[in-house]
């Protein structure tokens, strides 16, 4: 069934977040945002969330063991990435922030791609064009402009494709995010701007970023805004799907996904300096995985045997993550600086026809000379 929402304002921007699965797993259909998924799809969403949670838990432990320099946990936010990934078409493009491990997992980025940046062996990790997912943006909000530009390109190429971009409640205050909304509106770019409001920008509460629900900002820019329960993967999917379909011809949509950052900002953060355990515990009751589990058990799609099998698969993934992280190859020092430029400096300084001189001979060791000549272009 195609989505029936056609961009008109709805209570989603100001009322309670759109929800189809309540925290107990009770399903209530929202006719504007149909969940057109079959049983296999539903089990797939559940499996992805469980595995991404496991990857996150394992990565956190690996950081504590000194195997990763840092880890930015996505615990509690799995429904957003998994729901969005299910809603985007393979040919659509997605721009993440740095906590979108669920998105990367679902787009097919492997374990080493997701963890390589935190292991310190790469600043990127995958091929954006091949995966349909840009590399993580660590400068807050910069990627929102990139996404809008990419969507402008999709439009110039004839339309039909769409772009989604993920940013946080903190990023909603960045000039780049707001400029991106101006550009998206002016060019009617086919882009879904997905703001993950997880309550905290490191130590600063979302109330410091905005006096109004962030979804309401869309109205000021002249496009629709929707507020969705970010811990409800079915609502996340349905709303993202409707927004993407709208964006393909109608232009930008802002989605505010309301969730909670269950872990500290990163493993380097101490969240008990600025928030209470009681607040965190309260959100534990709205966990995105347990509510889908409850729903699927109620529907008879999951039983103890299936859950046990999923548990086993999850443990196998944890083992694979530990193994891959510990055996990631150290990058070759000779690649240092290799990708700074596409063009070769020596060639571009010498007139055509004159042979390009080789780099200076080694002084200390061949490795050092090669690395230095690469670094100097």
């Amino acid at each position, binding site marked *: 069934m195609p989505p029936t929402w056609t961009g008109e304002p709805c209570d989603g921007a100001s009322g309670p977040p759109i929800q189809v699965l309540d925290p107990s797993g009770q399903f209530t259909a929202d006719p504007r945002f149909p969940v057109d998924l079959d049983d296999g799809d539903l089990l797939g969403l559940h499996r992805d969330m469980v595995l991404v949670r496991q990857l996150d838990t394992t990565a956190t432990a690996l950081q504590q063991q000194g195997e990763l320099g840092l880890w930015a946990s996505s615990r509690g936010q799995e429904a957003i990435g998994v729901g969005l990934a299910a809603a985007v078409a393979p040919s659509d493009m997605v721009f993440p922030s740095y906590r979108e491990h669920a998105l990367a997992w679902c787009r097919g980025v492997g374990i080493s791609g997701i963890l390589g940046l935190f292991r310190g062996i790469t600043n990127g990790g995958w091929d*954006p064009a091949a995966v349909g997912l840009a590399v993580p943006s660590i400068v807050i909000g910069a990627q929102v*402009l990139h996404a809008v530009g990419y969507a402008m390109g999709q439009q110039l190429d004839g339309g039909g494709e769409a772009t989604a971009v993920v940013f946080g409640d903190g990023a909603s205050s960045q*000039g780049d995010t707001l400029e991106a909304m101006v*550009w998206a509106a002016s060019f009617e770019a086919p882009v879904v701007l997905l703001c993950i409001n997880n309550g905290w920008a490191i130590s600063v509460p979302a109330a410091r970023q905005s006096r109004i629900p962030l979804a309401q900002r869309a109205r000021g820019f002249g496009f629709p805004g929707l507020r969705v329960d970010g811990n409800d993967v079915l609502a996340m999917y349905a709303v993202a799907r409707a927004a993407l379909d709208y964006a393909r011809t109608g232009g930008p949509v802002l989605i505010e996904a309301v969730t909670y950052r269950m872990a500290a900002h990163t493993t380097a953060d101490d969240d008990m300096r600025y928030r209470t355990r009681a607040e965190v515990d309260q959100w534990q009751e709205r966990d995105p995985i347990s509510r889908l589990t409850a729903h699927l058990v109620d529907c008879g799609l999951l039983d103890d045997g299936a859950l046990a099998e999923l548990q086993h698969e999850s443990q196998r993934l944890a083992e694979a993550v530990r193994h891959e992280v510990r055996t990631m190859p150290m990058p070759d020092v000779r690649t240092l600086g290799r990708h700074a430029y*596409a063009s070769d400096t020596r060639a571009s300084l010498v007139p055509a026809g004159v042979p390009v001189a080789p780099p200076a001979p080694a002084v200390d060791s061949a490795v050092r000379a090669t690395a230095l000549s690469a670094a100097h272009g």
Partner: protein
Amino acid sequence: MLTLTMSRALNEGLRCALRDDPRVLVMGEDVGALGGVFRVTDGLLSEFGPQRVIDTPLGESGIIGTAVGLAMRGYRPVCEIQFDGFVFPAFDQIVSQVAKLRARTEGRQPMPIVVRIPAGGGIGAVEHHSESPEAYFAHTPGLRVVYPSSPSDAFRMIRQSIALDDPVIFLEPKRCYWHKGEVEPEAELADMPPLLAAQTVRLSPQRGVADGPPRYSVSIVCYGPTVEWAMRAAEAATQQGVTVEVVDLRALSPLDLGSVEASVQRTHRLVVVHEAPGRVGLGAEIAAAVSERCFADLYAPVQRVVGLDIPYPPNRLEGAYLPTPERILDAVAMTLAAA
């Protein structure tokens, strides 16, 4: 061969690039109907349409940030920043995004973006319209920085910059926009000299004299708007019996230090000229590089003729700030007096 102003030469270069490659886009503030405040994009909107020549909203970070996304999609955006002093809102997008995305993706994602910036002073402008921001960008790995000084170089270098897969900060000496020069509009990219190579012009006291005595020779290294002034100072010096090599760097990142070194080895004296403040500027980099590469060839300390280490002054005082031909000539005399 046509005689064109630099503004018109750039216009022709952009026209060639738009005509030759459908993925080239021109975007910026007032680049469409107005044709740019310096008319560099004049007529391009009517010739190529609003999908190729894009009047953007007013936001420099937005211009560069969306260009990044367009480049990821396979386009080759040529962005105009209206004036030098307005590039700083786009600083993160240029130095952290445009400059680094190729490295961040391990070479998988080229960033063929050209950022055109009218730069430099000497036109009696209001504040923020006379800045020389080149050192910020030359300091940033991942960027190419070029600064033509003549209409023919401007035409050639804008075409080469657009064809390059690296991002290029393309500085345009705004006080030279209306200078005229000969341009070969039919020139093919393949026949052009390298984009990033300097040009050395030797001025001897007497025609036909191949090499003046080293006792009376000096190199002046300069770029962009100061080339004209360096040439004027050089011509005055030749009247005094001095041989002068004027090295127009043309590219500031990378620096063609080989050409600088070769010239210093011939003249044994060096004056470096730029409008930007001297502190931690290109002149300091060149002086350091020359001392590393050919210290023993120098007969005199390197002299810098540069902007003052102060905020750019109100325009009635800019004559005292700028590296005028008189100041360059004084520096030439200093290097000769030191030997």
